[in-house]
């Protein structure tokens, strides 16, 4: 991105659902991002400044919608996020990681479960010792 890039800024607070639903707000913001990506702008800046209490569902819905519409990696090359706080950024990154893991699993098949730790077998000497102590 350079100084000549055409940029459109979207404020997350402009897309808040009137009843305060995080899911509907995220859908509205994602749709606006997708619409903006379909125009001739080079960069879509999404400002989350002023958005309060966005839990993981908000970011999950937002990212999934963008992924469904344009593919996450391609879309994010043209999307710049501006966070209102550090915690917001962490929530966003955690959702992003989870979504990418989900995409990988969908493409590669489920990751096998880690094997449960099996306690080592006690030797006959230890068993004998414990029995005698009991």
């Amino acid at each position, binding site marked *: 991105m350079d100084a000549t890039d055409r940029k459109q800024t979207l404020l997350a607070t402009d897309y*808040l659902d009137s*009843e*305060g*639903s*995080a*899911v509907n*707000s*995220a859908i509205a913001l994602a749709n606006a991002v997708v619409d903006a990506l379909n125009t001739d702008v080079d960069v879509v800046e999404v400002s989350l400044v002023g958005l*309060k*209490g*966005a*839990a*993981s*569902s908000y970011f*999950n*819905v937002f990212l*999934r*919608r963008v992924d469904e519409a344009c593919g996450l990696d391609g879309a994010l090359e043209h999307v710049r996020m501006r966070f209102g*706080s*550090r*915690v*917001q950024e*962490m*929530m966003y*990154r*955690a*959702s992003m*990681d*989870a*979504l990418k893991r*989900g995409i990988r699993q969908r493409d590669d098949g489920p990751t096998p479960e880690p094997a449960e730790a099996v306690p080592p077998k006690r030797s006959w000497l230890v068993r004998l010792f414990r029995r005698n102590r009991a």
Partner: protein
Amino acid sequence: MDVCKIDFNVNDDLSSVGAFLERLQHAFRREPIHQVQIDLERCQYLGPDAVACLAAVIAEQKHVGRRIRVQWPRGPRRLLEYCTYSGLRNLLESGEVLAVPWNPAHNVLPLQQFKKASFRDADPVIALIQRETSLSDDLQEYLRICVNEVVQNIQDHAASVVGGFLSARYMAGAQEVRVAIVDRGKGIRSTLSTRYADTDDSNCLRRVLEGQYTAQSRINNAGLGLSNLRAIVSQLNGRLAIVAERSSAQVVPRQPLRYNTMPFRFGGTAVFFTLPTSQLGQGVVTIGRD
């Protein structure tokens, strides 16, 4: 008429609340629908954990047409006032969560009932604390996220006919806020059983708290809600307890996550957390996997 005798103090800790829930479960398990009296006469302490549990159970039982009578505590005066200002008395007498005036002598948030999740669900909790002490912007945001994660989970998964109930109290002496959010929905295990085979209660709780799995039943799930809550609470030196059907989990400062099997089955999910309001700076909390 069956009597559910609560002849002990229901402190805001897992052992107390566990015993309380067990008595409630026992009283309401009988069919056909009958009348139950909840006898609080000898109880001398109820906190937000007990109020939220009681509210959820009562709302559910009233919904199915069961009649409930209450023998209120004899005292102390502070408890009698708490029963009023927490919204419990209104709920038991009218069957509804009604607006209760705030009393400055009690740092109590009147009972909230959620049927839909909203960004604003945590605002009353923050307003409650702000009356007493100022909160940094960060702590406000952490609190909002903690509440919103649980409430959103209830909306997405619980399928509870009466929704969820939140009760909160600010403890000025300890400088901490105690929040309890309880629903009587289908529980974590049944939510996850459609996707995972190894669904005993403690396994389910372990995995949702450790961020290892997700219901992914709707578009907004990534299985992060309770693990985010756990991350925030533990890094702020808070306490967290969750009761989900036959198992419970506990986060206490400087100790590993503990899981226990409950001697009864609690239908639904109860989440209790306590956050200290005295500490917090930038960058204390890390959310997400390493």
